[in-house]
């Protein structure tokens, strides 16, 4: 083996490190350690001059190992690996000591911080000593993409990828795509008609030669890794033959059985055979077996009798489809918060207390009231109160701000003003109108004469204390600007309910081996610099499944995710994990313990030779087998026992 020559570089990170850690001392200390040829410290190691410093030292001093003590390797490991590669050193002959996140940022104790930094640097030096050059291998990327969830985010991502003539499988759980947006009447702040801007996109998805749309379907299993995933999809039985049905709807008209419409949130009805709404894509009905008389009692089959195309098929069963894709985009959206637990607002107790989403349906021209804003008894409200932050910004429910409620509350105020003579009262804590055109919209609503009361509503009650309040819902709270408690008698109350993670978000996360942040939404790879990727290569997130957001942001994020996928498709290959495990077949006793341990089934037993062997393409380098092998026959590249022992020794100096 050639002589090991290590260069050590301690970064000040401006003052981020140097303020707490004595960088001079750390860098001096490094020179006392074996095989260290040079040790320097510099303001910003990641800058061009910083990187050049390393490159020059490699050339002039013949360094063959490099240690940088700076931030987390999750930030800059790729940067420095790239730099030493450019200078002709294998990128794996590199090690980083995290003296910022794990050191200068968690303590104010200069002495302890400096001691810890020294220990971390000594660990990195001792470890890098044993590093071996690794070969980077690549595999091809399957150009197909799986998108889970057909709301606006999923639709946008699907169209962008498909338009570049790459195949997309779009899987939607409901009978139609469209998500929440198709339930709305208008969208803030422009007041575009939601259906008018969304249905053309939905139709494009339905007809796109590069999109295979699977509605009424769910992904059940995912295996593989970036570049070559396999997904098992369950297409639930619709009891309608998709190839025969032309969407005429005669079955729906003839069906005598009714149920609450999920699409109208129970405010309206649908048939037992139904499409959720008129512009559904695909325009193919499904039979709801829980309400169909034939499934319940064995009699009826009215739909079948009237369908001239013979598309009704009571014998249909769920189908399992397997697809192979290179990348996955998750766009499963959000659930609307159920305000029942906030008993003081009387949701479910009083007739005219609605959630935000319910009010969308009431406003919608094709909704249960044909777009008329009316009370349960059919009369027009004379006054309406909109209560902000219901379930949001509240430790008892969700701590986060749902980001769209202030704006949709303003949208409702406008619609109420436009369609009725009602007074509108908004009870808000802070008006958050941060987007493009949003503050202007707020101003417009002020002009329209909406009453703004600054204070979180304490209660909605029907206990009147004077004549004016008789028969009304009274909203009580403090007007914090007046320092007075107020009672506002109204006819209708709209709760600006929060957006929350899907109730099955945990299962979906598990399916994709991605994680959830503390609030339950899916966790992005980096909150600022990588909001669309996840910790799992090849799995991207977009739209409200990552956190509450408005349509423009959901679309932007979906486009970003599509671009990331297209980039991988266009490159055509992905690098495999280089730090894999290998079995020393001389030492392998053939016990096969490791075979079952590997989560990727990368280890197989070669019967003829009585040894186990690891498939390098499948191995993801977790090291579980290494720790378990009783014959110590498995080596984890970059994480060899030698290396880890050296590191332990290093941190304990």
């Amino acid at each position, binding site marked *: 083996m050639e002589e090991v020559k290590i260069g050590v570089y301690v970064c000040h990170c401006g003052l981020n490190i140097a303020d707490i850690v004595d960088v001079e001392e750390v860098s001096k200390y490094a020179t006392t350690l074996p095989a260290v040829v040079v040790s320097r410290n510099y303001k910003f190691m990641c800058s061009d001059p910083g990187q050049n410093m390393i490159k020059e030292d490699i050339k002039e001093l013949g360094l063959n190992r490099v240690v940088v003590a700076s931030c*987390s*390797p*999750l930030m800059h490991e790729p940067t420095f690996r790239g730099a030493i590669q450019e200078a002709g050193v294998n990128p794996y002959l590199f090690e980083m000591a*995290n003296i*910022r*996140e*794990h*050191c200068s*940022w*968690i*303590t*104010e*104790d200069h002495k*302890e*911080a400096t001691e*810890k930094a020294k*220990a*971390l640097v000594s*660990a990195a030096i001792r470890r890098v000593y044993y590093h071996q050059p690794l070969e980077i291998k690549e595999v091809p990327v399957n150009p197909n993409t799986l998108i889970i969830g057909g709301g606006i985010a999923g639709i946008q991502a699907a169209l962008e990828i498909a338009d570049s003539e790459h195949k997309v499988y779009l899987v939607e759980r409901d009978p139609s795509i469209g998500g929440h947006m198709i339930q709305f009447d208008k969208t803030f702040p422009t007041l575009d008609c939601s259906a008018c801007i969304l249905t053309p996109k939905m139709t494009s998805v339905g007809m796109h030669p590069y999109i295979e749309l699977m509605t009424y379907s769910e992904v059940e299993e995912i295996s593989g890794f970036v570049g070559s995933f396999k997904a098992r999809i369950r297409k639930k039985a619709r009891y309608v033959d998709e190839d025969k049905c032309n969407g005429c709807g005669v079955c729906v008209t003839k069906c005598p059985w009714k149920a609450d419409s999920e699409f109208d949130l129970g405010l309206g009805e649908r048939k037992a055979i139904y499409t959720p709404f008129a512009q559904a894509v695909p325009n193919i009905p499904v039979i709801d077996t829980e309400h169909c008389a034939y499934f319940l009692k064995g009699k009826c089959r009215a739909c079948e009798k009237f369908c001239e195309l013979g598309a009704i098929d009571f014998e249909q069963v769920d189908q399992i489809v397997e697809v192979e894709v290179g990348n996955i985009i998750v766009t499963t959206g959000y659930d609307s918060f159920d305000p029942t637990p906030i008993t003081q607002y009387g949701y479910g107790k009083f007739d005219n207390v609605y959630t935000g989403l319910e009010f969308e349906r009431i406003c919608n021209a094709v909704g249960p009231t044909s777009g008329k804003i009316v009370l349960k008894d059919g009369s027009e409200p004379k006054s309406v109160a909109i209560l902000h932050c219901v379930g949001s910004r509240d430790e008892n429910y969700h701590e986060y701000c749902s980001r769209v409620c202030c704006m949709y509350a303003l949208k409702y105020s406008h619609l109420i003003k436009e369609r009725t003579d009602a007074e509108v009262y908004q009870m808000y804590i802070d008006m958050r109108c941060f987007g493009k055109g949003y503050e202007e919209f707020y101003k417009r609503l002020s002009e329209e004469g909406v009453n703004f009361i600054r204070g979180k509503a304490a209660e909605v009650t029907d206990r009147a204390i004077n004549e004016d309040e008789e028969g009304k819902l009274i909203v009580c709270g403090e007007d914090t600007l007046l320092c007075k408690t107020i009672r506002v008698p109204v006819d209708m109350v709209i709760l600006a309910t929060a957006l929350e993670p899907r109730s099955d978000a945990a299962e979906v*996360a*598990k399916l994709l*081996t991605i*994680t*959830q*942040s*503390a609030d339950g939404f899916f*966790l992005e790879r980096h909150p600022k610099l990588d909001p669309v990727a996840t*910790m*799992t290569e090849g799995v991207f997130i977009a739209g409200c499944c990552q956190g509450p957001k408005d349509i423009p942001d959901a679309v932007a994020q979906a486009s970003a995710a599509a671009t990331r996928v297209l980039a991988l498709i266009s490159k055509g290959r992905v690098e495999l994990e280089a*730090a894999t495990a290998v079995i020393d077949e001389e030492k392998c006793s053939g016990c096969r313990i490791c075979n079952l*341990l590997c*989560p*990727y089934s990368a280890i197989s037993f070669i019967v003829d030779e009585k040894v186990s062997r690891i498939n390098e393409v499948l191995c*993801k*380098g*977790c*090291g*579980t087998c*290494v*720790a*378990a092998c009783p014959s110590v026959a498995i080596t*984890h590249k970059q*994480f060899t*026992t030698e290396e*880890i*022992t050296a*590191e*332990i*020794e290093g*941190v*304990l100096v």
Partner: protein
Amino acid sequence: MSFEPKIVGFLCNWCSYRGADLAGTARMKCAPNVRIIRVMCSGRVEPAFIFQAFQLGADGVLVLGCHPGDCHYAEGNYKTLRRMALLEKMLPQLGIEADRVRLDWVSASEGDRFVSIVDDMTEKVRALGTFTQNSEKEKHG
């Protein structure tokens, strides 16, 4: 001067290491006593590493992985869980108090949890004092 215990932390790359990073990024303050070694998965942590750490002068060893069910490699942390259960039984024979070794879970978004585990463990180990091996204990009588 008070005794500052040395604790070796084995953190998996996908959840816990990121959780520890987050604690730093959010400038949460915590005991600086845990020296972190990054492994790809908690499943890589061999019991031998833990004994080695004690031999080399550690006063405690902390192993952190993703929450059960969240392991980046599907089930590496279940393997760790089983392995650590066995290891726990061996500790008394080696004269290592139970509080000196801890296996716990920290997700990438749980900077605060990381801090509380580290602080708690540091306090417990501080209370136990510096670790001296059985053999040495005998020697010193």
